[in-house]
């Protein structure tokens, strides 16, 4: 069964009827099970489960410490370019948006990498907009080659690639791949992506699987909460992760839980995902997939991130700048904040985030992988 077949399996599923038939008793019963089914996971995403958040939190916290310990992996994103050929209606990089388009030169990549490495971080996520012309795979591979000396783990969040291209980037030194489906609702997806290569729902949906086949060590999936009904997108994100982990047991599968900020300008979210809902999603995910990593972005405000650090999250970004070359041209960036892909809510430095974690009894981990390529030995 492909992931698309899994998604379509639930196409006619009556979610509202399932939720109205689910009460606190059903939720408690799921919390007592040693292993959850897909519908058990959906039970934990139900409105009724919102009444059981403390019990879920206790279980999620216990499972996180058991499997990941009192630690939090820190990483930071680096935007290599913001050229884009898509018109995603919710994204700051939309090709119709008038903003200064640029891409980093080799020298700028090296300089920005060195600036980040001084913070002590060894895990980096590199990103581009969706433009095969401006930022082809060869450009990304070259960037990875430059950054390899400063980072032991390089993640990739770019447009969907072919299996052969993932193989090429693994050989260039990229370890992990992140791909958000944005929404698993095929109809809503078409409306949100009116033009550009990203419009191809299937090519994007299957990208994480191609990355697994291409030899990535880690693959991270997720939906952008708020684009469609959040409970369904949360459900399918979990199913997607479970599907990949079952089929590719040697790949570390993780899930991100980005949400649209309810009060940010621009495109209004279809559904408001409040803090309570986000917490419910994180807890349900941890209980359903006890060993999967969960990544929390700096879209969330500092105070909320502090509280979520103990609720199942295993990986956090820190010292984030979503503008291209933002760390090289800091003064410029402050004046033109809107050039970022999205507005970040937690602007703390790596050291500040690390201090916050230590105060909570959580060890910030800066390095959790070792380069094994022969040239590195």
């Amino acid at each position, binding site marked *: 069964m492909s992931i698309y077949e899994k998604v379509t399996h639930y196409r006619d599923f009556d979610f509202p009827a399932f939720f109205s038939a689910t009460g606190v008793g059903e939720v408690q019963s799921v919390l007592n099970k040693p292993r959850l089914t897909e519908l058990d996971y959906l039970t934990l995403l139900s409105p009724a489960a919102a009444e059981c958040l403390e019990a879920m939190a206790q279980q999620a916290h216990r499972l996180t*410490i058991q499997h990941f310990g*009192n630690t939090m992996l820190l990483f930071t994103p680096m935007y290599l370019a913001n050229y884009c050929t898509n018109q995603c209606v919710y994204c700051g990089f939309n090709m119709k948006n008038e903003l200064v388009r640029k891409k980093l030169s080799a020298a700028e990549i090296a300089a920005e990498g060195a600036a980040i490495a001084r913070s002590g971080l060894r895990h980096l996520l590199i990103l581009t907009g969706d433009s095969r012309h401006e930022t082809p795979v060869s450009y990304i591979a070259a960037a990875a080659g430059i950054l390899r000396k400063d980072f032991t783990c390089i993640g990739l969040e770019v447009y969907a690639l072919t299996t052969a291209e993932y193989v090429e980037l693994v050989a260039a030194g990229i370890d992990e791949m992140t791909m958000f489906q944005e929404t698993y609702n095929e109809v809503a997806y078409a409306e949100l992506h009116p033009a550009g290569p990203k419009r191809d729902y299937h090519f994007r949906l299957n990208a994480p699987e191609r990355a697994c086949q291409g030899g990535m060590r880690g693959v991270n999936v997720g939906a952008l909460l708020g684009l469609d009904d959040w409970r369904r997108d949360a459900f399918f994100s979990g199913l997607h992760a479970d599907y990949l982990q079952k089929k590719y*047991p040697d*790949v570390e599968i993780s899930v991100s839980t980005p949400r649209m900020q309810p009060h940010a300008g621009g495109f209004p979210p279809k559904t408001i995902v409040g803090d309570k809902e986000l917490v419910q999603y994180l807890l349900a995910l941890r209980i359903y997939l006890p060993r999967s990593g969960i990544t929390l972005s700096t879209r969330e405000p500092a105070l909320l991130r502090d509280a979520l650090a103990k609720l199942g999250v295993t990986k956090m970004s820190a010292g984030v700048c979503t503008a291209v070359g933002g760390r090289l041209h800091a003064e410029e960036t402050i004046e033109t904040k809107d050039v970022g892909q999205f507005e970040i809510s937690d602007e703390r430095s790596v050291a500040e985030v690390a201090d916050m974690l230590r105060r909570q009894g*959580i*060890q910030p981990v800066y*390095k*959790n*992988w070792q380069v*094994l390529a022969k040239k590195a030995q």
Partner: protein
Amino acid sequence: MQNPDCDQLTIGGCEVNSRLFLGTGKYSADRIIPSVVAAAGAQVVTVALRRVDFDSPQDNILTSIPKDCILMPNTSGARNAAEAARIARLARAAGCGDWIKIEVIADNRYLLPDNLETLKATEILAAEGFIVLPYMSPDLSIARRLAAAGAAAVMPLGAPIGSNRGLKTKELIKILIEEIDRPIIVDAGIGRPSEAAEAMELGAAAVLVNTAVASATDPVGMAEAFGLAVKAGRKAFLAGAGAVRNQACASSPLTGFLQE
């Protein structure tokens, strides 16, 4: 029965004075590791090479390992024999010594080891002069092959890593203890000091514990408890615990008069 006065554990030619080995992952801060090691009375300490930042020699996890410990780097993160071998060589090149705990896991759902790749890695690294301690699913045939390949000890799991579920594989571990002419070190799954004592009572040469200590409310107190339990279990093994029977055995037999 072994002589308790000559109860020396030797691995790869090294005399090891503690039968409790410790892992260093999952702690809330590396700085508590020296206190944990001291409280446990541990000597062999394992560290995931992938966690060591050699670019920060003043501030990496190795600085938290007491100098009198035997450092046993592990190949956590390796998905096959080739990756495990590369990690082992990097560890040796970085000055971490010749001990290597082989951990090859290609299954992120259960974190169970890949015995075949573990065997291949053992063959490669033992031939290169490493003191190889392979972590494995308890299987007699593989354990025999590991020993033949030059493993210095064999480390079967009691239950999946981090599960704290105890000696779920007890019957298989007993067979390894009986049949394999190498120290058998129970690694993974031990959640409580009583379970560590049980492994030692069975005749395990040592146990390796990490999650149970690191995730305890008081890791230092738990480390001490494990240290005591391992000693108690070993003493019980050496003292020759009575056989377990299915029926009661009266200390004043009913048929005793027949001997008169």
